[in-house]
Structure formats: structure tokens, C-alpha cells
């Protein structure tokens, strides 16, 4: 193991977390990510690959659709592992790219109505398309992010790691204002 000490996306040694009213925002610094793209004539990978706009947990990983023939594979707790190497074994002949540190992942938990109210303030998406089992790339505060809804009471926003501060600002402010109105 390396003796270098990693920093979280906010430049801090520990993940950021904030409880605001009915919502809790937490940086998931442990999430490993690798992208998968089908190649011509490659055999079908040994993974469940969900359809457009969908997210699905499958065994020890979760997979969401990112584009035609393209998926992102989530490895919970896998940030310190070479998850791309693992995915390459499961998907031989596919294009696999390490993405763990390409994104900051902010998980938001709360009752479904509170999460839906938050989404209203953040993304121009029909809430019917943001139910459990969906993953949608869209814009938040001019940034391109994935809005992932693993379950009714869980939401994850994955955005460019370099813009973590801007994304947190947007989420935290929206949650704070929501708490004041509620």
C-alpha cells in the first residue's frame, strides 16, 4: 500500500457530512467507479446492464446506464482498489476506464417527499423519471451531474470532482432553504 494519504474531494482528510432538517448530505469518499463501453464483437460482459436512464444493483456492484452502449459501474467501498482492473476481468474485450476520482459522490438521505422537493430545486427533470432505480445525467448549477436514485429514500449526486465545492454549495443551500420553509 502506498504511504500517501488521500484527501477527500473537498480537500479535507475526512468525508464531509451535513444534516439539515430532514435531509442528510454525506460525501461517499469510498465509492469506486469504472466506466464500461461495449466494443465491436466483444462478448457480453458478465454483468446486468440496465437500459437507458436506469440503475441496478447486481451482486457486489451497481451499474447505471450513461449512454448508448456505455455504463458506469459502482464499487461500494472500492475507492482504494483498482476497480478498473476488476471490471476488465468481468468484461473482457470491453473498453474499461477508471473513473473513481473523476467524480465526487454526495449521498442524500431522507424521506421520499423531502428528496423530491430537493430535486425540484436542483434539476429540470420530471420527477417521474427520477424514481428508485433511475440514473440520469443532467445539469445542476451549470455542471453536468448524474442523479442516481438507488431507493426512494436515497439519492446520490455524482459530479465532476474538481467542482465538488460548487455542487456541495448548490445541494447544501437548497437543503437549507427547504428546511427553513418546512
Amino acid at each position, binding site marked *: 500500500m502506498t504511504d500517501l494519504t488521500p484527501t477527500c474531494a473537498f480537500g479535507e482528510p475526512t468525508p464531509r457530512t451535513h444534516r439539515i432538517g430532514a435531509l442528510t448530505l454525506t460525501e461517499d469518499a469510498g465509492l469506486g467507479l469504472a466506466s464500461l463501453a461495449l466494443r465491436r464483437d466483444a462478448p457480453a460482459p458478465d454483468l446486468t446492464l440496465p437500459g*437507458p*436512464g436506469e440503475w441496478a444493483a447486481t451482486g457486489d456492484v451497481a451499474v447505471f446506464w450513461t*449512454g*448508448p452502449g456505455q455504463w458506469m459501474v459502482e464499487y461500494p467501498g472500492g475507492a482504494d482498489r483498482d476497480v478498473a482492473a476488476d471490471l476488465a476481468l468481468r468484461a473482457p474485450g470491453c473498453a474499461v476506464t477508471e473513473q473513481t476520482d473523476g467524480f465526487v459522490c454526495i449521498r442524500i438521505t431522507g424521506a421520499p417527499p423531502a428528496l423530491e422537493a430537493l430535486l425540484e430545486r436542483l434539476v*429540470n427533470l420530471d420527477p417521474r*423519471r427520477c424514481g428508485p432505480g433511475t440514473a440520469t*445525467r443532467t*445539469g445542476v448549477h451549470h455542471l453536468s451531474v448524474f442523479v442516481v436514485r438507488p431507493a426512494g429514500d436515497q439519492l446520490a449526486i455524482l459530479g465532476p470532482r474538481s467542482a465538488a465545492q460548487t455542487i456541495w454549495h448548490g445541494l447544501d443551500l437548497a437543503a437549507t432553504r427547504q428546511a427553513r420553509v418546512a
Partner: protein
Amino acid sequence: MLIPHPLLGLRDASEFTYLGDAALLDRPDGMAPDAAARFHDYVHLRDNPAGLHRELWFHEQGDRSWLVVTRNTLTHEILGAELARDVKTGGAA
């Protein structure tokens, strides 16, 4: 505006980046003997129709698909959208 993404349904135009005339799909062969003349037309000449127009939009804050959108430039009515890849290869992959 809303753009009917063929895979993702109606999505707000703010997620997209506009390029222009879908004629850009038909890039001439750069090694052809008449390449200079054909590239002149390809790069510089565009129709600017008042009415139906096929144009390229990139789903930048989305699935990164290039779409061919058929739009009425007079009314902004959008008659349809296809994946540019399908248009180029002559049908759904």
C-alpha cells in the same frame, strides 16, 4: 424548448449544445481528386431554410449522444429526433 431524445424522452433544450445543419454528417472524402472543391462547399455552404430543418444537437449534459433533430425554424415545432449514429449508418443499430 424540449427535445424528444429517442432513448430518454423529452429533455430540456438547456441540456443540449447546438451545432447546425445535419448536412455536416456528409463529410467529403479528403483524398478524392476533387476534395478541395467539395470541402469548400462542405465547410462554407449551408441552407438556411424557413421551415423544416434537420440539425445537429449534442446532449452535453446528458448521454453525450449527437442527435439529428428535425425542427421547424418558423414555429420551433420539433417533428422528431434520431441518434446521429443511426442516421449515418442507415438505421437503428
